């Protein structure tokens, strides 16, 4: 099912727009909403390169203070007060960052996502819905 889900996501995003940014925004939004229990999700984005992606996420609010955020995108060298669950964009970072609950990256032309069950548990988070299949106990 998860392969079908990802495949459908790819097809859907291809139909919507050819833009990679839009495609990435769609997946990130899915990842964030599948983890969050509340409707209004606040994110802090450290990497300015992700600003355009964030503008395409309709149900996510981008805020300027990381300590008020529910999630952080692309955390790197964050202060102590910002130790919030992160979504990272590199598999090595995902393996080594104790705050990285999820990872999204491209490999061989394929969008790849993973959640760490241990870290999700640490933050009291659960991945629901169709992305639950991407939770791995190995990381």
């Amino acid at each position: 099912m998860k392969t079908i889900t990802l495949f459908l996501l790819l097809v859907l995003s291809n139909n919507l727009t050819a833009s990679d940014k839009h495609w990435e925004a769609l997946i990130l939004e899915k990842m964030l909403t599948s983890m969050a229990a509340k409707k209004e999700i606040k994110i802090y984005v450290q990497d300015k390169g992700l600003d355009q992606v964030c503008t395409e996420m309709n149900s996510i609010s981008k805020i300027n203070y990381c300590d008020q955020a529910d999630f952080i995108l692309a955390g790197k060298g964050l202060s102590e007060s910002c130790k919030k669950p992160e979504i990272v964009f590199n598999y090595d970072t995902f393996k080594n960052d104790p705050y990285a609950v999820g990872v999204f990256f491209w490999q061989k032309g394929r969008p790849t996502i993973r959640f760490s069950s241990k870290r999700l548990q640490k933050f009291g988070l659960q991945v629901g819905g169709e992305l639950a299949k991407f939770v791995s106990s190995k990381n």
Partner: protein
Amino acid sequence: MSHQKTNASVSKKLIQLIILVLIVFSVAFVSYTEYNNTLKETTEKLNERIIKFHFETFKELSKIYVKDTHKHFIEEVKKNRALRSNFEDMLRLIKISTIQNLFVISRDSDQNYYFLLDSDTDPQTRATFLEPFNPLGNFWDRCYASQEPQVFHHKNSKDLWITIAYPIVENGHTVALIGADVSHNLDVNIQTKLQNFSDFFLWILVLSVLWFIALYVATLYFKRKMYEGYIDPLTTAYNRTYLYEILMKKLAREYQLFMIDIDFFKKVNDTYGHDAGDVVLREVAQRLDKLIRDEDSLIRYGGEEFLIYTTQLNSQQCFEFAERLRENIKAEPIRYKNIECSVTISIGCNPYGSKNEVFADVLKKADEALYMAKVFGRDCVKVAK
């Protein structure tokens, strides 16, 4: 009226043109579709051969992997870094230019796929050992379950053409999959070159249609203009221009001329006015036109003079035909407002027209016969000797 005959003639030509358009369009269309079908079939056959070639290669490779690890592929690859490096070298050896990505993946107890080997040497794009692999499409699972190679066609992708999943089977169980993204560069090159031919047929198709539409419109316009130039606007019979420019060029080997004059037409004009005269002229022309055949021609030769051109009539038939014309005109008075005007005609006929004879002479004999009819008291038919 003459309109009907001219329209019939124009319609006949147009039908011929439309048939021609349809033939050209059909030929171009059949050529275009046939070419594209052949191209599609050829491409499919080429693809099948390429896929078969890859299957053979991966089959040999999977055999080597299983043999070299003594049927403990996963364990050996996981623990032996040098072996992994060796196996990746093997992948690079069989990686031809059309293969974009060539790797080996496996599946863990969570049913998540991860990379074991990758032929890519670029640290930026290379998948690290045990890095997650998200399969797009369920053919990877199918390959795992069926132990049969699977092919996925990326029809809308710009970068990939097909993905092949080939199982590495050990003791009757699939332990890993060889994955290959085969680039469509070769196929694109062939298709791009062949596309020019396809475009050529398409252009012929489009241009032929456009050309014939233009021809159709131009013909309609020309026919209309020509038709207007050869028609007498009052009676809608042909005029003298038609006689000399068209009819004289297509005279039959033997033909007949009937010169017709409305008796005492000047009196009609003088008594009832020119409007009444016009009505008489129009009505006489209409009645004459109804009695002639499609291949005959009715021409307004002068003020109240008409000329009928016929073919394939002998002297007796000419006389009988002329009598029918005369009687038809005489039978019913022509009505103009409250006036009933009894009109008669005199007819001079020359049944001996020949292509070898000067037309003016044939016409003159018909005119002389008409003169005789008038001399003999009008409302009669005289046939030239």
